[in-house]
């Protein structure tokens, strides 16, 4: 408390008369020294108030800062000297605050971040940069860079601080300069590490840049921190410039090798919050092609971005369907991104110009894999297959082959074949779905039985089924009102008492 009172007195004194200016050092000392958390917080607050007031009074030197010794020694007015000196103290303060952003205590970090951002705001209003020519930008870019550097530590997770920072990203100009600063930071950091992955750093960058909300139209950009006369002529006001910066940032981020988890996260948001805001989405082709080639879940996720490129930007992808075909493995029914994947597969296979052998191979493979699928996936995939049959009537031989050879000893379909055209799917039949007609879940069995009949003309809507979860199924089943309750009819004799009980064979009650 005593410290607080002392600091308050200092503040009073410094603001009161220029004669007491030297007491600033008392404050800065506390800020720089390894003090108690409370003291540091107090000092930070005092600094914030002090320099805030000074900025507002315009008592800080404006323009490129001369060296301290030289300017003080030079023949200038006392006023000038004071301003330069004070500006140097301000600079010291900023340095201290930037250091404090790496402090252990979150409160300190948060407060220093907020203080810095307050200074950014004030500097935007009362610029410390002299307008020398028409295009001069008065925004405190260096300060933003300092903040961004503080937000992206190399070896710790700063997601909490970053989420605190998100509110400032609402400002269009702040966002613009943060994007630029991040690009710069990535360039510097990754250059140094020489392609060695930095999981924390990359994670931090991702958590900083992934929530960025880019404006859709130029007219949406109205919230600016900076007020300048020649506003219209500046780059900051142009959406095009924003997009360019955004694109550059992402490209520089994705240029480097990413950890798998991050890879997936990027791919998940790629189609939605990155591609639409790029000037040249085709620049992502390389990245997506590589991702698509990796295989597994990453390929599944890359599909979405690829689709946008193919669909909207005329990307020609050789052997796309073959690749898609090879993506189908037992895990597709189990992965988290099942809904998204099947949504895309549905899109890709919706063209009626696809050759029958290709569609048949897909059908056969999907149904073969369905033998290991959970019921919620089965409930989705069976209508999906039905839709394929509707779109491609040539494939109906898979379920209806009246004059086929009797008593085959093998399924003609070759599961291991990677080339759909050679898989002999058209010679096969969907015995898998027939097996699923005996599935334990009644709805699945019912859905599978549909293939026995000739299909109706209208396609099923599977969009509602894509997101089906096991819990939903369970809930539905539990809520069903049973007309008559099925009961065990054999008289029991305890837990394992029945005849031919499997449990009694292998377990004991101990």
């Amino acid at each position, binding site marked *: 408390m005593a410290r607080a009172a002392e600091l308050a007195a200092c503040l009073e004194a410094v603001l009161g008369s220029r004669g007491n200016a030297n007491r600033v050092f008392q404050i800065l000392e506390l800020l720089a020294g390894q003090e108690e958390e409370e003291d540091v917080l107090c000092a930070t607050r005092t600094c914030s108030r002090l320099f805030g007031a000074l900025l507002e009074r315009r008592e800080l030197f404006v323009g490129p800062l001369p060296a301290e010794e030289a300017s003080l020694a030079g023949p200038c007015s006392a006023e000038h000297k004071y301003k330069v000196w004070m500006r140097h103290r301000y600079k010291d303060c900023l340095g201290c605050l930037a250091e404090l952003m790496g402090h252990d205590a979150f409160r300190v970090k948060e407060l220093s971040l907020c203080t810095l951002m307050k200074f950014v705001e004030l500097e935007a209003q009362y610029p410390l940069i002299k307008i020398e020519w028409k295009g001069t930008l008065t925004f405190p870019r260096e300060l933003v860079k300092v903040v961004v550097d503080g937000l992206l530590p190399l070896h710790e997770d700063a997601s909490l601080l970053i989420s605190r920072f998100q509110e400032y990203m609402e400002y269009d100009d702040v966002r613009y300069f943060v994007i630029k600063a991040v690009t710069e930071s990535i360039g510097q950091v990754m250059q140094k590490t020489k392609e060695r992955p930095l999981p924390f750093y990359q994670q931090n960058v991702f958590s900083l840049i992934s929530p960025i909300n880019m404006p859709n139209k130029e007219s949406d950009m109205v919230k600016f921190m900076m007020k300048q006369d020649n506003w219209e002529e500046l780059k900051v006001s142009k959406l095009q410039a924003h997009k360019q910066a955004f694109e550059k940032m992402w490209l520089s981020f994705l240029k480097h090798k990413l950890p798998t988890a991050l890879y997936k996260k990027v791919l998940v948001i790629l189609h939605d919050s990155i591609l639409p805001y790029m000037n040249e989405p085709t620049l992502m082709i390389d990245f997506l092609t590589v991702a698509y080639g990796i295989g597994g879940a990453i390929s599944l996720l890359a599909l979405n971005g690829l689709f946008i490129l193919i669909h909207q930007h005329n990307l020609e992808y050789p052997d796309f369907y073959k690749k898609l075909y090879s993506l189908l493995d037992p895990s597709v029914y189990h992965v988290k991104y099942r809904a998204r994947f099947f949504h895309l597969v549905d899109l890709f296979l919706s063209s009626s110009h696809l050759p029958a052998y290709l569609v048949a191979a897909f059908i056969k493979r999907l149904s073969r894999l369905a033998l290991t699928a959970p019921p919620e996936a089965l409930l989705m995939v069976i209508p999906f297959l039905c839709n394929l049959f509707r779109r491609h009537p040539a494939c109906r031989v898979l379920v209806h082959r009246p004059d*086929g050879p009797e008593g*085959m000893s093998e399924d003609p379909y070759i599961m291991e074949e990677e080339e759909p055209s050679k898989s002999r799917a058209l010679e096969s039949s969907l015995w898998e779905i027939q*097996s699923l007609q005996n599935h*334990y879940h009644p709805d699945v069995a019912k859905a599978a039985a549909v293939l026995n009949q000739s299909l109706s003309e209208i396609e099923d809507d599977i969009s509602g089924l894509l997101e089906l979860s096991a819990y939903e199924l369970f809930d539905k089943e539990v809520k069903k009102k*049973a007309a008559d*309750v099925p*009961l065990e009819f054999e008289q029991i004799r305890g837990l394992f008492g029945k005849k031919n009980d499997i449990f009694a064979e292998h377990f004991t009650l101990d």
Partner: protein
Amino acid sequence: MGKAGKRKVRQASAPSAARGPVKSAVAAVRSNPFEVKVNRQKFNILGRKTKNDVGLPGVSRSKAIRKRTQTLLKEYKEREKANVFKDKRFGEYNTKISPEEKMIRRFALERQQSYGKKNIYNLNEDEELTHYGQSLAEIEKLNDIVDSDSDSEERGALSAELTAAHFGGGGGLLRKKASSGQQDEEEEKPKSRKELIEEMIAKSKQEKQERQTRRESALELTEKLDNDWKEIQTLIARKAPKSERKDKEAEKPKPDEYDMIVRELGFEMKAKPSERMKTEEELAKEEQARLQKLEADRLRRMRGIDEETNKKKPSHVSADDLADGFILDKDDRRLLSYKDGKIDIENEEEEEKDKEEEEEEVGEEEDNENEEESEEETANEDEEDSAADTHSDLESDLESEEEAAGNKEQKKEKTNENESQNVEKLDQKMEAAKSELPYTFAVPESYETFKSLLAGRTIEQQLIILERIQKCNHPSLAVGNKAKLEKLFGFLLEYIGELATLDLPELRTIDKLVLPLYNLCQMFPEAASDSIKFILRDAAHDMEEVIEVKGRATFPGLDTCRITTLQDVIKGLFICCLFLEYVSLSRRFVPELINFLLGVLHISLPKKQAQGYTVVHPFTPVGKNLELLLVCDKEDLESWQKKNLPLSIVTRLNETSRTEMNHTRLSCLALCFDLIKKSAALYESLPSFHEIMHPIRILLAQHVPVNEYPEKMKEWYHSALKELENKVKHYTPLICEKKKPVPLKQYTPKIVKVLEFGRKQASSKKEQERKQLIQRHKRELKGAIREIRKDNQFLARMQLSEIMERDSARKRKVKELLGSLATQEGEWKALKRKKGKN
């Protein structure tokens, strides 16, 4: 046909209507070519039926006029008349009733009307009987008169008088009697009316008495016969019936053969109705009453009142023990008797009669329990049991009785030993009564009370408590009991759940507790399913939350959770067993089962790249939890013996030594092989059986290190592999179910039923019907309008004719008057002329 024709018709028809029989007139008309109007057709259409090609306009017109005169005209004429003539004769206009019936009904009606008007003092009054409308009494009177002519006038007259006075001209019987019996006296002196009546009263009284005595004696005789029969009945049953018959023959002088047979049949032992099966309700009531009585007994004992007062009961005869001659050669059962407040015989638990299957187990346990328990408790147990048995005897069938008897024999020796020691002090018994279970229980209202009820009891006692709760609160006993017992199910389920989640699960207790659970479940399926659903939903909800929070769940479902420990594997295998059990009858396909077994096999292999198969979700092809089931230790492999996995391992892995762990792993593997075999047998009928089992087969055939396994394991392995491989591969192409073929368009003419010509045929039958109805309605409407118009014309004609008639009458009258006046005038003038002349 012109106007002339019409006129002619009117002239012709009017007299014919007056004459009466129309038909002849019509026939006459029809033969007259002038009367017939032929509707000429322009075109002849084949198949068209023409109804109206020939008409008789005159006939039909006259018919219409006649009808109008009969109805409309009448109405018109009576339009201002209020009085109506009503014919109230029964059924006069009802043509459906035949005349005879009509008469009968009328007669009945008449009787009914006169029924209420009877003279209440005239008791014997009968309605007058008639024959052909003449009073029978009258006829008899006449007869009597005739009779009296031959016999004696006086008597006949008197007798007639008597009958008329007292019996309303009653039957001839009485009269004859009177004539025979009283003849002399009557001749001596004619009795007064009063005397006569008295005499008759006396006579009737005497007669009544006689009748009564006769009936009594008959009753006595039959009773005696019954008794005699009962005495000899047993003899009949035991001895051959023939000999008995011989005895009878000897007794009776000359029995007719027919009589013999009749009697034989009559006396033959009939199938007597056995004790009727008691309904569930009654059983429940009895059981409750019994338990209440026992509870009262216990309380009394607790208070120290001795049952010395209980009388020694006479030999007990079971209700089933019909006097049917069936006697056990030697009844070695002890009969129920109290001795010093104890009971001599020992019986088993009362559960036995309810659950036969359970009998053995419980019985055995009871034995054990009895041995363990202190002497006095045994005694009390015995007592209660025996009391139970007396009733159970009543209810149980013969078989179980015999079985029980067998049990009892075994136990008897033991009791005899007990008995000597059982001579106990009263206070000790009181103690025992206190420690003994109460007999009646209310259904606990909350789970806490339920728990406290069961707390500290042995398993058997818990079972007894549960059973008594059920019996005291059987749903048929009171209205609210059903809801209470339904709640009990929930409590029991919760209790079992609690037991199961203990650190050391009391599986033995649970094993026993599932029996009452099962019974309750059978009683209230809906409530049971609701509470089970509730628990399942709760569990699922919890799991969902856990998954959301942690991204994975601790409980390894077959699908959702990662397998990280050996316990997880065991749990999973347990669930696999459960699945197999459930689908063992329906043969439903459970993909998760196969996936899990594949995964289990996979983790039993040394780490290497999986070839030719892919493990799915709960397992990962690569990762840190591989080799969970891998056993490398040669010694452990050698020393392994297949043994059942204890369930407690799931919650707590107590084997710490490596060897035991390895043995558990091998047991899991063996279980896995067995499950593979079982599921292969289950699913062999599926069309894609080979595809389903393909990964497992590859794994078994190519990757599993069989040679390292011990002999026993090899057996498991080979049986599983054999089950997989000896299935025939057989694929038949799929064929859709035939859909109803759409008929081709044909060129043969479509034949449609023509209902009406000149109308467009509607397509559907319904539409056709509708159109037809509309058409008919239109036609009817037209007809009605025409009729009304004709009616009006008719009326107008009638009115005109009336007016004309009236006018002409007036004219006539005026003419008459004028004429009379003229004659008067003429006369007067003539007179005047005469006078003038004169």
